[in-house]
């Protein structure tokens, strides 16, 4: 029986293709990375091998089955070039702002040709992670892998095992980014079923200010899997806006872990959009590890057809006088299912915390489902915390009000749905991004089936 005893976990059939690709990845090119990176990858891979893919018996995955992700033999996208992207085509994804500094990744691979980082303030680094690991490892090492922990999830472990492609953004102390940094990930896989593991590290130095856009777009012929890990450090008195826009192809899978770490008096404003993918899951964690920290988390998810969108957020108040404000809204149509789980933890030291969390869902079809669970855990005694969740349908009185003014029922429903989402979209401070999201929402409401 010694056959069965040899490396038992690694032979698990659903991991075989990852094992094969990891061997290739390690042999080919990846060796150029510093020793600590190679060690981190190896550690991560070992963790991945030991862990099991979650099932719906796991509390964190109670309403979301990753079975389709586990079942498909995803191969590493960087080994299988997909369809080419012309400059003209890529430009349609720039929010009409070709002047914004950007890094473009096609099927997980950095494209020098499509990227442009001119006009950045002195000292600011925006570069692909592989390059940063070669040229500025001392700036990366203190942060990379320190916030997205391998034990958090098998997907974080997997992503870290293949750590390489991705983006590094560094704002030195006191710098102000006038233009947002746009990180654009486009998938164009054609023949193979592929996976990319984008890794993003953003370090905002003390007193710096800036905005980052993480933008996922798909136009692919095959199912693909984006397994994203993002780490963000917001230094003392720094202020960072972070937009994560997920508009992947309808047959794709998008699983992302976003780990944010905030120091004293910093402000982090996160906005998450989920409009694409057949299965989308965000785990968005913010640690308020300093006093007088302010955190805003806003999210909008739009699911129709058979889409499944899951947002797990966690806000961890560790120090006094922190503020966190969270608003997530969902529009769920067709046979789609949306999951929201929002945790707010107020530790004993986090006195005078002011926290407000809201999740509102609009269900447009009898077959759509929403599971929402706001959770509040408070260990400090002098705090102001509220939370609440609603799941509702369009208000018939409001529909009548609009029809009584000459607007037909279908348009009335659209207008109300748009209005429902609008207050979250209005929290997007970058005007060109907001305008695009508004236009897309209106277009989607126009074509979608919104009959009851």
């Amino acid at each position, binding site marked *: 029986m010694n056959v069965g005893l040899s490396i038992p976990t690694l032979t698990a059939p659903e991991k075989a293709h990852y094992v094969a690709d990891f061997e290739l990845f390690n042999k080919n090119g990846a060796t150029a990375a510093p020793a600590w990176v190679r060690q981190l990858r190896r550690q991560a891979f070992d963790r991945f091998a030991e862990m099991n893919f979650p099932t719906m018996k796991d509390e964190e995955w109670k309403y979301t089955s990753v079975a389709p992700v586990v079942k498909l033999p995803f191969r590493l996208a960087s080994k299988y070039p997909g369809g080419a992207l012309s400059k003209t085509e890529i430009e349609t994804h720039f929010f009409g702002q070709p002047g914004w500094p950007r890094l473009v990744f096609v099927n997980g691979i950095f494209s020098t040709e499509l990227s442009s980082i001119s006009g950045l303030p002195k000292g600011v680094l925006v570069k692909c992670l592989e390059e940063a690991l070669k040229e500025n490892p001392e700036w990366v090492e203190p942060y990379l892998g320190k916030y997205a922990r391998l034990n958090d999830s098998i997907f974080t472990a997997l992503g870290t095992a293949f750590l390489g492609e991705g983006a590094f953004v560094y704002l030195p102390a006191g710098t102000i980014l006038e233009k947002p940094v746009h990180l654009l990930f486009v998938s164009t896989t054609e023949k193979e079923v592929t996976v990319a593991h984008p890794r993003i590290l953003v370090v905002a130095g003390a007193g710096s200010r800036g905005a980052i856009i993480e933008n996922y777009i798909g136009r692919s012929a095959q199912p693909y899997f984006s397994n994203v890990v993002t780490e963000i450090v917001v230094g003392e008195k720094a202020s960072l806006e972070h937009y994560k826009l997920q508009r992947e192809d309808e047959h794709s899978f998008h699983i992302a872990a976003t780990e944010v770490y905030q120091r004293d008096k910093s402000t982090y404003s996160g906005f998450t959009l989920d409009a694409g993918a057949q299965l989308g899951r965000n785990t968005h964690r913010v640690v308020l590890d300093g006093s007088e920290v302010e955190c805003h988390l806003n999210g909008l998810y739009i699911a129709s057809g058979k889409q499944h969108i899951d947002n797990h957020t966690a806000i961890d108040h560790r120090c006094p006088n922190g503020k966190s404000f969270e608003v997530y809204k969902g529009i769920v149509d067709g046979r789609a299912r949306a999951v929201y789980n929002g945790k707010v933890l107020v530790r004993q030291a986090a006195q005078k915390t002011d926290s407000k969390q809201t999740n509102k869902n609009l269900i447009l079809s009898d077959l759509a489902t929403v599971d929402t669970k706001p959770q509040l855990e408070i260990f400090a005694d002098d705090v102001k915390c509220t939370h609440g969740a609603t799941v509702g349908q369009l208000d*018939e009185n409001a529909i*009548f*009000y609009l*029809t*009584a*003014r*000459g*607007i*037909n029922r279908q348009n009335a429903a659209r207008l109300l749905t748009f*209005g429902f989402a609008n207050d979250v979209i209005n929290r997007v401070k970058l005007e060109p991004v907001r305008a695009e999201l508004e236009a897309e929402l209106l277009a989607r409401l126009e074509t979608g089936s919104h009959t009851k």
Partner: protein
Amino acid sequence: MLEIKNLKVAVGGKEILKGINLKVNAGEVHAVMGPNGSGKSTLAQVLAGHPTFQVIEGEVTYEGRNLLEMMPEDRAKEGVFMAFQYPVEIPGVSNAYFLRSAYNEIRRHKGEEELDAMEFLKLLRQKMKLMNTDESLINRPVNEGFSGGEKKKNEIFQMAVLEPKLAILDETDSGLDIDALKVVAAGVNNLRRPERATVLITHYQRILNYITPDFVHVLVDGRIARSGGRELALELEERGYDWVREKETVSAGA
């Protein structure tokens, strides 16, 4: 313009209107008065097409067409406007956007060209001047966070923009202070034209000090118990609705 014949209406199986007859000609202002629960608001809502109400019997003709067969939006496009007793809040949709949508639906229906955002803003500004409306109103979400008075004024502002042929005001005067009442009354008077008509539903005589009706009808228990001229409202003010009720009982018994 509007002719209601023997209209009987129920809500949840309970008969509220028990045979209403009313004829409104172009150029006229009719006040429909009555105590709480008499069916005044039901009448307004049925005319606007609210789906909760079931018409059991009777007919309503508007400009020669069967009004009851028309969808609420088609009634609006044909010039019927109801000012809501309880205007609904529409978060996230600005007054300007909402009104332009409504205005353009009506224009399209008439075969006229739609107005773009700039052109419509011009029109809104004119109407705001006319109605003495605060500019900030147009960019605020429809009725959201409005006071009771602001909501009612917003209804009248919408009416001024949409210029209906038949305006039905469902207790627009209720709960208004005297200044707001004057604004509402001025809005109605501004729209008084030979080709238009107004049905003013009210509990109190007070608004009739500012809007002079051509006819006054008293609705009691789902029927029009009395009709008359302006003086009927004054008589009601003095003697109360019980007076009509008593007369009703006497005449029914006779």
